C-alpha cells in the first residue's frame, strides 16, 4: 500500500450529506473479480445519462473535478454497503483523500486499507475549501489542509493515521506475530471448545 504523508492536488466538491456506497459505485459494477478498472464507473448514475453520455453539470465532468485527487463531501460519507469497490473506484479515478465532516465506519476502514485518507473537516472549512480555485495540500503528518494562504486543521482516527503514514501491510504485521494468535487459539480451545 502506498503511504500517505502529504498530498497536493485539485479537489472536486459534492457537499451533500449521506453519499452512500450505492451512489459511489452501483451494483452492476460489483461483478468484477479485480480491484482495478472501476474509476470510469465512479458515481456512474450521477455522472452519465442512460445512453452513456456525460451529465455536464456533475462535479467530476467539469474542471477541476475531472482531474481531482481530493474529494470534498458532506456528512456520513460512504454509508450503506460494505463494498470495497467504493474505495477501489475512488482510487482508480485518482482520489487519494476524502474530506468530509464524518464518515460511515466500514467505508472509512476500507478507504484506509487502500491508502485513501478519510479526513474529518468542519463544514465551515469545507465551504471555504470548495470555493478555493487552486490545488489543496493535505498534510497528514501535521493534520493540516492548506489552500493558498488559508489553513485548516482536520481530524484523523489515530489508528488510521498510523497505517496511512507507514503504508502498513496489516496482514504481514499479524503474520509476524502469529505465535500470539496460536496461543490465543489454545486458550480458546480449552475455554470454549464448541467454537
Amino acid at each position, binding site marked *: 500500500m502506498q503511504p500517505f504523508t502529504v498530498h497536493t492536488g485539485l479537489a472536486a466538491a459534492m*457537499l*451533500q*450529506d*449521506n453519499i*452512500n456506497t*450505492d*451512489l459511489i459505485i*452501483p*451494483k*452492476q459494477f*460489483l*461483478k*468484477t*473479480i*479485480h*480491484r482495478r478498472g472501476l474509476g470510469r464507473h465512479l458515481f456512474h*448514475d450521477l455522472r452519465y445519462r*442512460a445512453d452513456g453520455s456525460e451529465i455536464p453539470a456533475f462535479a467530476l465532468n467539469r474542471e477541476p473535478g475531472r482531474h481531482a485527487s481530493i474529494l470534498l463531501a458532506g*456528512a*456520513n460519507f460512504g*454509508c*450503506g*454497503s*460494505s*463494498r*470495497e469497490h467504493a*474505495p477501489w473506484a475512488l482510487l482508480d479515478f485518482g482520489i487519494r483523500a476524502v474530506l468530509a465532516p*464524518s464518515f*460511515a*465506519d*466500514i467505508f472509512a*476502514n*476500507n478507504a484506509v*486499507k*487502500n491508502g485513501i485518507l478519510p479526513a474529518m473537516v468542519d463544514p465551515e472549512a469545507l465551504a471555504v475549501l470548495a470555493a478555493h480555485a487552486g490545488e489543496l495540500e493535505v498534510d497528514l503528518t501535521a493534520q493540516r489542509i492548506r489552500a493558498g494562504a488559508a489553513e485548516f486543521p482536520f481530524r484523523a*482516527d*489515530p*489508528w*488510521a*493515521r*498510523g497505517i496511512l503514514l507507514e503504508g502498513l501491510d*496489516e*496482514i504481514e504485521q*499479524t*503474520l509476524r*506475530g*502469529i505465535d*500470539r*494468535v496460536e496461543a*490465543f*487459539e489454545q486458550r*480458546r480451545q480449552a475455554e*470454549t*471448545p*464448541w*467454537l
Partner: protein
Amino acid sequence: MSARTLYDKLWDSHVVESREGGAALLYIDRHLVHEVTSPQAFEGLALAGRGVRRPGLALAVVDHNVSTRDRRAGIKDPTSRLQVETLEQNCQDPAFRVPYIPLLDPRQGIVHIIGPEQGFTLPGATLVCGDSHTSTHGAFGALAFGIGTSEVEHVLATQTLVQKRARNFRIRCEGVLPKGVGAKDLILHIIGRIGTAGGTGCALEFAGSAVRAMTMEARMTLCNMAIEAGARTGLVAPDEVTFAYLKGRPMVPAGARWDAAVAAWRGLASDPSAVFDRDLLIEVDRLEPQVTWGTNPEAVVPITGRAPRLSEAAGPEAVAALQQALAYMGLAEGQVMRGVPVDVVFIGSCTNGRIEDLREAAGVLKGRRVAGGVKALVVPGSGLVKAQAEAEGLDAVFLAAGCEWREPGCSMCLGMNDDQLQPGERCASTSNRNFEGRQGRLGRTHLVSPAMAAAAAVRGCLTDVRELL
C-alpha cells in the same frame, strides 16, 4: 471486575493483542463468504503465496448474483457467472479449501439466513462477512459485523482482524407491539429517530420487554438494519428463546458441550449496573406500521403520515436535499402516504426472507388477489425456508393470489441479478435500503414490513395493513 455490557464481554474475550492508535487484534470465530466481496481477497492471498489459516471456521455460499428463476438453466449473465464460478474454484483450491454450499444444494440461500439456520452463528462468537448486513447475527449475542474485502483477506490469512472498540448504545424497547406492527416497523422507527448516522461508532444493544418477547427471526430483522442507523453491530442478549432456536441445528454443539455452552452463554447478558455511553427508550405500545417516503432509511413515517413539507426543512441545504428526494421518489411535498400507487412488491431479502416473514405476508394474501398491474415477487431467503413454506402450503397461497414464487437469493434487494426495477417503477419492498438506484436505476423504493408489502400488493397502493387484518 466492573460491570460490563454484552458488547464489552464479547470484545474482551476476543482480544489477541492491542494495536497502535487504540485498535486491537480480535480473534474471529466464524467467517461467512459470498461471491461478490471475496474474489479480490482470494486473489490477494494467491499473489502473496498465502493460504487460508482456519478454513473450517469459514462457510461460503453464492447469493447476490444468482438467478431466482430456474436454477438448472445456469446463470445467463457472463460476469455474474464468472463471479459465481470464481467462488467455487477458490473454495476448492488446495491452498484454501473453504467449506462451500453449492448453488443446487437445498441449503443454499442468503448468507445471513443460512448462518443462523445451520447453527453456524453462535452466541459469544465473533462473526464477520464481507457484507454490511452481518449485523443480523448479533441477534444471537454474537459480535457480528460487516467488513470490506481487504478485511476478508486478513481474516482468511490470519483468522483475526484489527478493529477499534465501539461505544455502547442501548435501545430499550418497552411495551407490547400492537397487532399488525412488527420488528421491521420498530427498526424503521428507531432509524427514523436516531438517523442514518445515529449509531456510527456504536454497537446497538436492543433490550427491553418488546425485544424479550420477540422470536429469533424478529430479533434478526431488528439487528439486520442496525447498519442502516450507522452501527456495524446490533446485539440482543441470548436467552431461552435463543437456546430453543439453536438446539439441534446441524452445526450447534450437542450433549455435554451444549450444556457447557449454554452455561457460558447465560453469562453474556449486560450486567445490571453496566454503563452505556448512550441510552434511548422507545415505547412501542402505540407504534404504527411504518413506510419510508425518501431515499434513505431515516426518511420514514407511519403509514398514516405524509411526506415532509419544504417549510419543515431546516435551512437551504435541507430544503435542497428534501426537494431532490421528493423529485426522485415522484412525490409531492406533504403527500399522504396511504394510497400512493405501487407497480412492484418485493417480499424477501436478509431482512425479511425468513419463514415467519413469509407466513406474515401469506396471512394477508390468503384468499385475496394481487391488484391488477402489480407484479409481486416472493423470494425465500434460503432453500430450507422455501421447502418449509411449501410444506406449509404458503407457496400455494402466494401463487393463488397471483404472486411469483421464486428460488432463494438476494434478488431485488439490490438487483445484481435480473430482478430489477425499471426506471420510474415504484416498489413496496421488505428489503433494507431505499437508496437512489438501489433496486434498479431510477427505481423508487418504499421500505415496509412483509405484512405491509402484502397489503400493498392486494390494494395496488401503499396501504395500512391493519385495515386488512
